[in-house]
């Protein structure tokens, strides 16, 4: 398990997992580890919310416990379940012993005696841990990913609050289980439903938007290393422009990477009309968007292909600032 002291450590460690983190993400992650607060990540699909958790777990050399939310998810999927089957099996194996022990007792004595042993049947031996419980019981700080919480209903959201507040869960038969090492919790949402303020209040909030061209190029070149620099720039420029169109499903970062891989493996070294016609299946996910891609191609082909076109902001990200003096 690795610790991080500065934002740059985090950026470097994530880069080692092929995840290109912005400074904002790095600072947020560090805040989360220091303050022991969950992170709520929002943003469009395919911009790397889930993969942040996965890469972070890998970078920290710790376990990832992933809980995929869906409509109708409940505690037994998220927290724990009693293993009735196992309890039953043990009882049957013990039958002989029980006969020996209770054979000559009256029923009420036998029940009294048995009830002193009750806790043996509701012990952790028979507890089947689900992601949240496993993350809390982990021997070192794990990463807990609660994915797409907006798909779960708001009852489940409310149920999560205890966990998020104190990193503990209550199991009626056993008592309260508190985490010795609070997991780094990452909650993602695609915003299909508004989350409650109660949940938001308990989290650090980070919105990941579609990346700017520099970061997107970075990601393409890291995740699809077979892509040449020139092709990468063309792809990024094309996709960035495409996002401004009104599409059924705007391509995210992961689609850009898929497309780059497709083009590289098919041996294209630049985007032609043929490419736009045949390979955009990696990029767009609705037939209705196909026309828009071709229209965009014509526009893009005749315009400036540089990734910096139409981008007047001063992107001085100041990678060089080290303020370590006076420490």
């Amino acid at each position, binding site marked *: 398990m690795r610790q991080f002291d500065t*934002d740059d450590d985090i950026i470097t460690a994530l880069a080692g997992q092929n995840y290109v983190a912005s*400074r*904002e993400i790095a*600072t*947020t992650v*560090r*805040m989360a580890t*220091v*303050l022991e*607060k969950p*992170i*709520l990540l*929002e943003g469009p699909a395919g911009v790397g919310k889930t993969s942040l958790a996965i890469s972070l777990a890998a970078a920290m050399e710790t376990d990832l416990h992933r809980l995929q939310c869906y*409509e109708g998810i409940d505690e037994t999927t998220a927290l724990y379940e009693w293993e*009735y*089957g196992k*309890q*039953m*099996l043990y009882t*049957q194996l013990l039958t002989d012993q029980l006969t020996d022990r209770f054979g000559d007792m009256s029923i009420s004595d036998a029940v009294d005696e048995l009830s002193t042993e009750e806790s043996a049947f509701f012990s952790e031996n028979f507890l089947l841990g689900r992601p949240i419980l496993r993350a809390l019981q982990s021997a070192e700080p794990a990463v807990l990913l609660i994915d797409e919480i907006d798909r779960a*209903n*708001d009852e489940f959201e409310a149920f999560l609050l205890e966990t998020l507040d104190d990193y503990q869960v209550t199991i009626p038969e056993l008592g309260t289980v508190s985490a010795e090492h609070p997991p780094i919790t990452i909650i993602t949402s695609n*915003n*299909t*439903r*508004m989350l409650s*303020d109660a949940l*938001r*209040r308990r*989290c*650090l*909030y*980070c*919105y990941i938007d579609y990346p700017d061209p520099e970061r997107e190029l970075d990601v393409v070149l890291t995740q699809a290393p077979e892509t040449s620099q020139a092709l990468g720039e063309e792809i990024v420029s094309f996709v960035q422009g495409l996002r401004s169109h009104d599409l*059924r499903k705007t391509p995210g970062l992961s689609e850009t990477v898929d497309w780059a891989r497709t083009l590289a493996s098919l041996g294209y070294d630049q985007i032609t009309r043929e490419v736009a016609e045949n390979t955009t299946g990696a990029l767009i996910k609705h037939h209705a968007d196909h026309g828009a891609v071709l229209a965009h191609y014509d526009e893009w082909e005749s315009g400036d292909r540089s990734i910096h076109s139409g981008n007047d*902001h*001063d992107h*001085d990200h*100041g990678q*060089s*600032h080290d*303020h370590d003096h*006076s420490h």
Partner: protein
Amino acid sequence: MSPEFPIDDEPSTELTGEMVVFFVRLLRREGLSVSPSEAIDALRAANEVDIRDREAFRTALRTALVKREADHPVFEMLFEAVFVPKSLEPAGGHGHDHDHDSEGGYRLENPEEHIVPTHEGEGHSHDPIRMLYHDDEDLGDAFERMTAEATGEAESVPVETEGMIADFESEPSFTEQPAPSVNMDRKVVEWKERQFEAFDAAEKAEMEMVIAHLVRRLKQQVRKRQNDVDSGQLNVSKTLRKSAKTGFVPFDPVFRTNEIEKPRGVVLCDVSYSVTHASRLMLHFLHALGNHSLIKSRDFVFVKELAEVTDLARRQGIEETIEGVFQGEVVDVDDDSDFGHAFKQFYENHMETLRHKPTVIVLGDARNNFNDSEAWVLDEIRDRSQQLVWINPEERSLWNRGPSIMDEYGQHCDFVEQAATPTELRDVLESALGRHADAAAPTEDSSTP
């Protein structure tokens, strides 16, 4: 004008704290709700970063204080205005987008005394984190101050920071300000009975409250229905199969349930001027219902041209969408109403939205301006939907007068309702959802006779 307030040396913890507390107050004045616990998070976060690193400081404050993407612009505006990079001219206003903060540090764009809390003499002698945390004597005060602020003056004054700070100075101490008490029940009643036409922008927040109230009621109904349905009989075969692993001891009995499918809706909303208020409320309502997973609806708006706003509302929020719609950004709202044209467009392009037999609701006054009615489309819709409901916000006595052809359209609908107030609208929706659930055939599972 504002005295230089440079942060050259390692800033003290108290100073960081003062800055954060000050900034939290500014956010609240702009209408963001920042809870005391969030303010504490921000204090702790700010102490973890080198606050002379502007970007890190910005991220620390933002992640802890601003929990909605929609609130980011307000945060950015305030942050840019208050924590100005040192290399820039004071009160520059221009060129803020050049972040030359690699030199480190920034000025606070306000005189020092502004960030001293109203407790004279005390503020600087205490570490604010301790004030909020440990120091028993100050803890109460600090919280009272912060919560009073959170619930108190909600007037949002989007002015330049200069004025804002001045305002802030002259503001009476929060502790003396009793929180304005709102008689919720009376307000709800008042709003429920009000005609749509009475709404205006300033009253939007209260409208939200009424909607939330109504949504809760609807939700209880749905849940109750679900519970009724759930209490089925024992499903013997499934229980036996499931208990096989526990030696046929039925630990986990399975009951017959009739799954309630989430109602699907398709809504065609006339947004012409005459029914503005009703459609505004309708869109709000549907969005709220969708948000609470009570209904899955596809929302269309039309005057003459028809356009879908479902995705738009999801992307940019219902408020902006509705504003956009009525400012004519989605469809041309200055067109004359042409229901027939809109219906035909729906038939040509959007019939696939009827795939799961949704409930279709048309909201409009049926004033077709003597265009072709194209009422046959309604028959097509009715065939493929669970039910077709027409909601007309106009008084019944006005129906079929002038260009209104309510009766002609009405013949092709399953239900025609008049709804003019939020309460009436709620009742219509409630009964529509009820019918939808009933019609969605409570099928017994087929495994057992």
